[in-house]
């Protein structure tokens, strides 16, 4: 799968309601180690590691978008 295809596959153009609610149940259950990732901090444009936040304290992370 090309990078362009990966982008278009993840960022679907039409909502069809295909969310995998059942798959969520077995991924990262309570008690397991959280997954680290890199992201861009909107306010500064800096690349940050998610683990930098949980090294400082507990973290409540919400996922979402404008739509």
């Amino acid at each position, binding site marked *: 799968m090309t990078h362009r295809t990966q982008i278009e596959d993840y960022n679907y153009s*039409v909502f069809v309601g295909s969310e*995998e609610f059942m798959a*969520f149940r077995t991924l990262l259950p309570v008690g397991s180690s959280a997954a*680290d990732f890199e992201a861009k*901090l909107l306010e500064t444009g800096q690349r940050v590691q998610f683990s930098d936040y949980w090294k400082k*304290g507990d973290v*409540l992370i919400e996922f979402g978008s404008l739509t």
Partner: protein
Amino acid sequence: MARQFAPKGINFVFLYTREAHPGENYPAHRSFEQKLAHARAFKAEFNVERPILVDDLTGTAHKLYGSLPNMTYLISRGGRVLFRADWTDPPTIEYAINYVLNSRARRREGLRLAPFYAELVGYRWNEPVEFQKGLARAGQQAVDDFDRAMKQRLKQGPRPGRIELPE
């Protein structure tokens, strides 16, 4: 809530993902600059004070946590999952954080408490009018796509993994 719990050591962050309901005004991301622009619009529209982390264009972080549109996780200092929900609901989050903080306080007082695995059914506030306003913000395409998906869902019946309980 972020301000309420900050003195107790809870950091709140938001991860900006793909558009759940793309429309004419906020279409599916095709460049990272576009995703950043949508995240800035989100911050302004909802006056978000929490740090906003923007995921990469292929959703690497989002996929690691389940790819659902509105999830919440509470991660401990040190990186263990303490609570998670497939839908973000403030009263449920407040309940979970207070439970964790109270349990730690009781431990500090000398109670012998052992962690165990637990689950519960959450009850979230359902606001169809506000939800439709959100779809309209994205554009008429988002309204039409959601309507079409719901009609299809009615034909297909209950979806695996969605909680449906009688009153």
